[in-house]
């Protein structure tokens, strides 16, 4: 482990699916001597890329879970988190960006800026992560790095500057010209490991000069020193130019662009030079936490190993040796044998094994210092928990976790599957905060919720493969509610005389709407007309009615019950009799109180390129959405709407197809609101049909 914090880089590699980021990571590991052979992502040789450690990932050729690894390059330590590419797994990307200091944005030289590149870029912006871009696949037919740079500027609003120009393209892609050193770089040897630096080919000198001028021009915007040298016609040294570019990159004012072909082993080493020269070390990034003792006052953490420890658990994995917790240490040091506190639970944790991960292999270490990423064994915690030294009460700012957008019911095939499914769900929930599960009290079905259909599909698949739990998935349901809209009186007598001791109880009072809360019971009985001992039974009777509303059998909320009169019988009254009387009273008054159905309304925010604004608003409008407004931010705009959850199923697919996959949306619960009469009629018809078929 490199002890010099200035020589540490924590980077993420983010991109659109199939841009080749796993291949790029594989090559980085190879050139930094972390692995000694190169394997394909799709696993033609049966081994698969090193970072794709899960069986499913190897089979599908995609990276699902991010795996952390570290490697060394020219005296620097580079900690890499390989992030997933599919939009349904963005929580992985979000978490990676939260703990990393910078990133490489991988773009395909043919596909250019694709939908996921936009999503990833938004996330980088959210966490102010500086980045450099790598235009991959320059050997592919149709490769056009210049067009991609233009798209970076136009579609993502980056001030993208080429650090290199290609020597040939497509089949003729041979190497790159470094515009800082003004040298041609070729990648030779069996795996491109032998670098040959030579003079720029004659036919490219003019292009290189133009490129360098543009590079200097952009860099000068970020450095007064460089501007002075230019004005004084002085010599622009490599270090001066790199320093200016670094300043711009750190402020996210410049995005340096590198070129190459990971698959053909070209351009990786200069990219690594770029990572070490242009991206920040942990001390250059401001990390904030919340002081729990001071009413969550934000505090700045110091990236120093001698301070009290603050670390964030950003990922959990269930490995063959138990739970593995990936952590980023922001301040202090996490040592083997030390005791830390989990801020969320307040529990003490004794640190056992401390390791550094290399894809699915591991290396035991003694400690993880501020600025470093590592993993712990045998720590019971959830994703997003903060570990601190005893005596400190700090929590890392909570990570942005999007709310689940889709849910469906799953049923295990048999008893064995039921047990395994529970185990699997427990694990997945801990690993992935966007994946949730609960048992529906009414139907007794297990409901899983996640970020998209593929997200849930993968988990169902994982249940089967890793936990041998066969489940069948059903259709999702919306949680409707019933409530009343006006006051209604009741006066109900429950009387039964069928031999033996009878049942007698009379309750009178009224129901009225409750603006906040689910249920309120008011006992306004005077003179003991209902003895105190039977009051809880009355309340219980009313409460029981809330589970299934008389109107449509949806749970009843927002109701206040007041009892102010009644009658009892010294022999025939009992708890049971008063419960029955309360149930009868509820039914008697309920329909007089004008019951209505409420549905969950979601706050939906769609981020889309401005050109699709009209289309996006149109779709929201068609889905009974009220568009609150649109926020224009230049290239992108955000549209905020209030849409019934029932109308949101299948929305992601429609949104993707109508925006060429360039829009993304978040959705969160806003409130319950009365459904329109036409929808209520539809629901009633559906319920009646169900009842008929059940009978």
């Amino acid at each position, binding site marked *: 482990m490199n002890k010099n914090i200035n020589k540490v880089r924590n980077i993420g590699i983010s991109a659109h699916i199939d841009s080749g980021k796993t291949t790029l990571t594989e090559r980085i590991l190879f050139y930094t001597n972390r692995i000694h052979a190169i394997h394909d992502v799709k696993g033609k040789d049966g081994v698969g890329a090193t970072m794709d450690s899960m069986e499913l990932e190897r089979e599908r050729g995609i990276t699902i879970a991010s795996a952390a690894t570290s490697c060394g390059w020219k005296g620097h330590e580079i900690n890499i988190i390989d992030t997933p590419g599919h939009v349904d797994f963005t929580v992985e990307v979000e978490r990676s960006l939260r703990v990393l200091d910078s990133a490489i944005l991988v773009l395909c030289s043919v596909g250019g800026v694709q939908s996921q590149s936009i999503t990833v870029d938004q996330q980088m912006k959210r966490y102010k992560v500086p980045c450099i871009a790598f235009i991959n696949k320059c050997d592919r037919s149709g490769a056009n790095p210049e067009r991609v740079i233009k798209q970076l500027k136009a579609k993502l609003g980056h001030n993208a500057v080429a650090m290199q120009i290609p020597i040939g393209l497509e089949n003729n892609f041979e190497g790159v010209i470094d515009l800082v050193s003004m040298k041609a770089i070729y990648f030779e040897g069996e795996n491109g490991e032998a670098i040959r630096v030579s003079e720029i080919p004659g036919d490219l000198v003019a292009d290189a000069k133009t490129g360098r001028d543009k590079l200097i021009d952009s860099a000068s915007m970020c450095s007064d020193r460089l501007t002075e040298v230019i004005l004084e016609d002085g010599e622009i040294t490599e270090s001066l130019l790199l320093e200016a570019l670094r300043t711009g990159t750190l402020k996210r004012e410049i995005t340096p662009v590198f070129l190459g072909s990971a698959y053909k082993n070209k351009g990786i080493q200069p990219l690594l030079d770029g990572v070490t020269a242009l991206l920040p070390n942990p001390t250059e990034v401001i990390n904030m936490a919340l002081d729990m003792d001071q009413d969550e006052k934000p505090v700045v953490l110091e990236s120093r190993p001698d301070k009290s420890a603050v670390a964030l658990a950003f990922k959990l994995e269930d490995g063959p040796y138990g739970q593995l917790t990936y952590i980023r240490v922001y301040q202090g040091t996490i040592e083997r044998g030390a005791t830390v506190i989990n801020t969320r639970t307040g529990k003490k944790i004794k640190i056992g094994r401390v390791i550094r991960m290399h894809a699915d292999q591991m290396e035991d270490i003694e400690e993880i210092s501020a600025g470093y990423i590592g993993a712990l064994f045998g720590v019971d915690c959830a994703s997003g928990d903060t570990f601190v030294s005893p005596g400190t009460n700090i929590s890392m700012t909570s990570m942005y976790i999007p709310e689940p957008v889709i849910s469906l019911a799953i049923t295990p095939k048999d008893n064995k599957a039921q047990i395994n499914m529970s185990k699997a769900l427990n694990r997945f929930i801990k690993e992935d905060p966007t994946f949730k599960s609960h048992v529906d009290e009414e139907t007794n079905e297990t409901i899983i919720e996640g970020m998209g259909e593929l997200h849930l599909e993968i988990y169902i698949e994982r249940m089967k493969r890793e936990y041998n739990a066969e489940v069948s998935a059903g259709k999702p349901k919306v949680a409707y509610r019933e409530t009343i809209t006006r006051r209604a009186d009741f006066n109900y007598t429950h009387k039964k005389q069928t031999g033996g001791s009878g049942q007698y109880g009379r309750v009178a009072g009224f129901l009225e709407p409750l603006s906040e809360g689910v249920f309120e019971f008011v006992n306004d009985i005077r003179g003991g007309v209902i003895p105190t001992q039977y009051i809880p039974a009355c309340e219980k009777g009313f409460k029981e009615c809330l589970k299934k509303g008389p109107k449509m059998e949806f749970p009843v909320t927002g109701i206040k019950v007041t009892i102010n009169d009644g009658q009892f019988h010294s022999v025939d009254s009992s708890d049971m009799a008063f419960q029955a009387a309360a149930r009868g009273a509820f039914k008697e008054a309920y329909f007089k109180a004008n019951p209505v159905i409420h549905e969950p309304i979601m706050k939906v925010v769609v981020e889309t390129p401005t050109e699709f604004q009209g289309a996006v608003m149109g779709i929201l409008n068609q889905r009974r959405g009220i568009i609150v407004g649109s*926020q224009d931010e230049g290239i992108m705009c955000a549209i905020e709407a209030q849409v019934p959850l029932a109308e949101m199923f299948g929305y992601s697919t429609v949104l993707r197809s109508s925006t060429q996959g360039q829009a993304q949306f978040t959705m969160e619960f806003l409130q319950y609101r009365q459904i329109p009469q036409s929808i209520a009629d539809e629901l009633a018809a559906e319920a009646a049909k169900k009842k008929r078929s059940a009978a």
Partner: protein
Amino acid sequence: MRTQDLILGNPFYTGGSDVNEIVPEGGFGAVLSRAGVGKTAFVVQLALNSMLRGKNVLHISLGDSIEKVSLWYHEQFQRLSGECSIEERPKLWEEILPHRFIMTFKISKFNVPVLEERLTDLTAQNIFHPSIIIIDGFSFDNPEKQEFSELKALACKYKLQLWFTVHTHPDETIENSSGRLLQVLELFDVALELKPHGAEVHIIALKNPGLRAIDTKLRLDPSTMLIKNFE
């Protein structure tokens, strides 16, 4: 008739005429004051008043987020309906909400062609047909005739009333503004100035003599930011 109660209880509705009816279709109205006096509060109440009467309001904010603008509306509505002791406020809020559409732009990105494009998006798909547009945060430092002519054409085409907030500089008056405010006033059918006066904010009609009458009646209460009739 709770909506009607609110309309009638609205101080804008003094003497049988309503401030936002004084601006004709295709006309411009302006609310002038220095920063922090209550321009946004004023135009939000103007908008709420219209929404209550079923008119659609497009609120354009140059600088604030949708969330902030929404909060303005919600708070002003709560205060307004609280004053009138209206029951079932949430339901009424839900009823008037579809009459409002918020658009926010960065000030540098806002121009007439962009606005027209957005308006077409809304109207062509039958999503929202505004009757009133409020533009909050428009820069009047160097008012350009051309831009206002284009806005005027747009207002006429869509039969809109346009209300602007105009930020005046501290101690700036019509006389000492080197003609800037006069230039602004020229463009408008109605111009109201919010002027702090002790613990109150007076509403002064700078343009449209028909409105002079409200000078003495309406005040902006700085504690609630609500317009009150002090008659």
